[in-house]
């Protein structure tokens, strides 16, 4: 009979523990034990700190017919229970009758030791006023035998149920926002549900989840969710978390468990259980073990959420970058389309670029575009041209990191607080990214961005590189276009100059012929040869010679323009030949000169006769051309009522035909350049305006062809042109 009752009780206890419809609790098991032994109540104890030498017993579960508030209160073990724990054997009141042991005012009938599966020890206390029958004893012994296994089974089922509940909550969170991560606030709401589940399962007063963003500069973990309803974010867990359990039985302490939320070797936060709404009123390593799968779930979910959020941020950044680049490119196209560069163009581009960075990398708090002045020394200070966001540097004019980026051509990524401080950055700055703006070896500047987190967002290095490359490309295009514009302008000037020179040559060629024709007409109409006719014929001769000189100039010009050199037909000239040539050319110029200007050409015959019997090897037409051009210039630029002196200066090896005139002054710069093609002095250009700038260039080339040279000296308005030829 007794055996049957015990078997029935075991069956009942097992059914409760393994019920598929409603998972049983340890309280349920205790109730079955109490009822099976006809006790008024039962209490299951354990010694959570036994391994540390503390045998204080604490209630694991109890079933007793008393009001709930009293039942949930912590209660110390009675002497019978303690005796059983100490002796690891059955204890009954008979042993300590005088002590009248009770629990919640119920007399303790018996206490039996329990050996839990995790190695811990405890006691099952049975309550009742009617004593402990033999049958009850037998049943109790049977039940105590299997109770540890069933407690473990119940715990495992509780753990599984808790894991399933958390899974379900996190699944709901995913379903709520399938395409993108939940907002941090909504995530906090869902995790609070997890906290509630854990708190309910473990009867904790508070369960909180603390997390840290990978980019957080602070070393602590901020509370995101809690079961106790206090506002999240107001608590911070300092230091590095470890997995721990504290029973809370020591005087002045409360139960505490902390489990790290880890994923892939990284600790992201912790799950913290504190206080008890028991029983039990303590935590054990078994409770801690229950938290591990939950912590793993949470760590995995948080990592996933971070990844989703990073991807979302990254996508938003790329979209923002695409939009920003479109607007930047519009501006660049606008600027590049203008032939005349505005001084504000580059600054405008830099400002837009800095603003794009601020928008595309929302974590950035400030961005600066530095310009590297063209031709500047590589170690010189960069010039800040645009700032978006907040000021972030004590001295905005310098950036050692930016200079390093410029020098090395490599992106500088700085998060070390000491290095940041050394670069004059304000304490709020957590990261600094300096991206060189360059195309190949050509450096244009640096794009610098800062933020307050521990490190920049994942894709910011690429974003900066793309924008820096775009600015670099713009600068290169600006340079190239500027160069092309310069070339075009130079070509245009050259084209105009050539056209002007051609017109001038035509003018010089056609005008004398036209005038000669008119004068010949007068002579013919007059039909007599008198003094006037003679004067006209002399003018006609001069005009024809002038036309001939101009035609020859055109020929030399053509030869030189094709890269050739005029070929002289050399002959030996004596003093008489030279004198005749000089007088002839001077006469022509005199005849053709405007008599109202009263400019006279004097040939110093004596100076030429000093040549004696020495000879000079020249091309006669070249010499006429040279002297004619020099005297033409003298006639053009001499003041009214002045004399132009033509003389020879003879040295042992050379003869110099020197033309001295008084007229428009030549500066040193004029003298240095006046033999160049198309050169015209500023004074001459602004006074008479005429001239092609070819005359002296042709003279110089013809003199070189005769192994001679042109020497020009000026003393204010006195100009002396010497045509120096070697004597044979």
């Amino acid at each position, binding site marked *: 009979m007794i055996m049957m009752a015990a078997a029935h009780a075991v069956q009942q206890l097992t059914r409760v523990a393994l019920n598929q419809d409603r998972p049983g609790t340890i309280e349920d098991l205790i109730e079955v034990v109490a009822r099976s032994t006809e006790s008024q109540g039962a209490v299951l104890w354990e010694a959570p700190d036994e391994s540390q030498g503390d045998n204080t017993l604490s209630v694991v579960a109890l079933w007793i017919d008393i009001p709930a508030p009293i039942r949930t209160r912590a209660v110390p073990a009675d002497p019978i229970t303690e005796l059983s724990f100490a002796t690891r054997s059955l204890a009954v009141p008979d042993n300590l009758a005088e002590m009248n042991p009770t629990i919640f005012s119920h007399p303790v009938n018996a206490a039996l030791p329990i050996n839990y599966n995790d190695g811990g020890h405890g006691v099952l206390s049975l309550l009742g006023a009617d004593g402990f029958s033999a049958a009850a004893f037998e049943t109790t012994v049977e039940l105590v035998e299997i109770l540890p296994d069933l407690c473990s089974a119940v715990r495992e089922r509780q753990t599984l149920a808790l894991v399933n509940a958390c899974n379900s909550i996190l699944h709901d969170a995913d379903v709520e926002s399938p395409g993108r991560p939940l907002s941090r606030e909504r995530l906090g709401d869902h995790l609070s549900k997890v906290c509630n589940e854990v708190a309910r399962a473990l009867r904790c007063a508070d369960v909180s989840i603390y997390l840290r963003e990978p980019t957080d500069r602070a070393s602590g973990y901020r509370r995101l969710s809690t079961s106790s309803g206090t506002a999240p974010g107001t608590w911070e867990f300092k230091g590095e978390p470890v997995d721990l359990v504290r029973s809370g039985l020591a005087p002045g302490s409360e139960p505490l468990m902390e489990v790290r939320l880890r994923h892939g070797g990284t600790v992201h936060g912790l799950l913290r259980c504190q206080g008890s709404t028991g029983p039990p009123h303590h935590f054990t390593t078994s409770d801690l073990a229950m938290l591990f799968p939950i912590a793993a779930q949470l760590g995995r979910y948080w990592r996933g959420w971070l990844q989703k959020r990073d991807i979302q941020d990254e996508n938003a950044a790329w979209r923002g970058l695409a939009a920003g680049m479109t607007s930047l490119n519009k501006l660049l196209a606008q600027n590049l389309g203008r032939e005349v560069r505005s001084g504000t163009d580059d600054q405008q581009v830099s400002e837009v670029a800095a603003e794009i960075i601020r928008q595309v990398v929302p974590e950035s708090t400030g961005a600066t575009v530095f310009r590297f002045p063209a031709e500047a020394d590589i170690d010189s200070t960069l010039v800040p041209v645009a700032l978006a966001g907040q000021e972030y540097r004590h001295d905005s004019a310098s950036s050692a990191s930016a200079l390093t980026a410029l020098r090395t051509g490599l992106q500088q990524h700085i998060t070390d607080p000491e290095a940041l401080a050394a670069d004059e950055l304000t304490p709020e700055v957590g990261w600094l990214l300096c991206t060189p703006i360059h195309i190949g070896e050509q450096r244009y500047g640096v794009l610098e961005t800062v933020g307050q987190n521990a490190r920049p967002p994942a894709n910011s290095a690429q974003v900066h590189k793309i924008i820096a490359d775009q600015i670099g490309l713009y600068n290169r295009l600006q340079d190239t276009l500027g160069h092309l514009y310069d070339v075009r302008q130079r070509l245009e000037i050259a084209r105009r100059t050539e*056209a*002007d020179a051609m*017109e*001038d040559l*035509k*003018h010089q060629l*056609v*005008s*004398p012929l*036209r*005038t000669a024709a*008119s*004068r010949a007409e*007068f002579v013919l109409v007059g039909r007599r040869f008198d003094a006037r006719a003679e004067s006209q014929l002399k*003018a006609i001769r001069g*005009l024809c010679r002038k036309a001939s000189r101009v035609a020859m100039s055109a020929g030399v010009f053509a030869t030189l323009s094709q890269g050739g050199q005029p070929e002289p037909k050399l002959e030996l000239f004596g003093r008489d030949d030279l004198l005749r040539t000089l007088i002839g050319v001077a006469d022509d110029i005199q005849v*053709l000169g*405007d*008599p*109202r*200007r009263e400019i006279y050409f004097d040939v110093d015959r004596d100076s030429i006769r000093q040549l004696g019997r020495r000879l000079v090897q020249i091309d006669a037409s070249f010499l006429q051309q040279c002297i004619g051009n020099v005297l033409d210039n003298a006639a*053009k*630029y*001499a*003041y*009214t009522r002045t004399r132009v002196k033509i003389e020879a200066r003879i040295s042992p090896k050379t003869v110099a035909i020197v033309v001295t005139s008084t*007229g*428009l002054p030549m500066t040193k710069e004029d003298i240095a350049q006046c033999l160049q093609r198309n050169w015209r002095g500023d004074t001459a*250009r*602004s*006074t*008479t*305006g*005429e*001239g092609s700038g070819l005359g002296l260039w042709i003279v110089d080339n013809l003199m070189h062809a005769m192994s001679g040279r042109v020497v020009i000296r000026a003393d204010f*308005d006195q100009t002396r042109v010497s045509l120096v030829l070697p004597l044979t």
Partner: protein
Amino acid sequence: MPRFIVVEDDHLQEAPLQDYLTSVFPDSTVETISTEEDFRLAMPAMRANIPDLVVLDVMLRWSFPRPNPPKPPKDVLSGGYYRAGLRCAQLLQEDALLRDVPVVLYTILELNDLLRDGQQLPPNSTYVGKNSELDVLVRHIRGVLRKKSRTK
């Protein structure tokens, strides 16, 4: 009695032109101006005694060299010597009293060279090339004067 002004900086061309005009228009008076500067200085006098026609060379020097000359106006400095006659014609065109004075641009330049870079002849001006004989110029002047007398 027509009154002509000839603006020509080459004295070798100026005299025959003056002689020819005087011989063809015996009642006429022909005044000559040799530089662009002198032309500008002569404008007040022209307003007081409006000429019937102005013959303008195009490649025209600004002034003859002299010590310490004043700086030419900006339009002369930027426009240069090669189109000085066009500038003079434009000055007449812009003058309320002188805008109806016909101008004959008498130049060695071809018309298409003259109008290079998109320049236009002022409305008061016509073109005669210097390559032609003087009687071509005179026939042109006669035509201009006839047209002018009809529109009065």
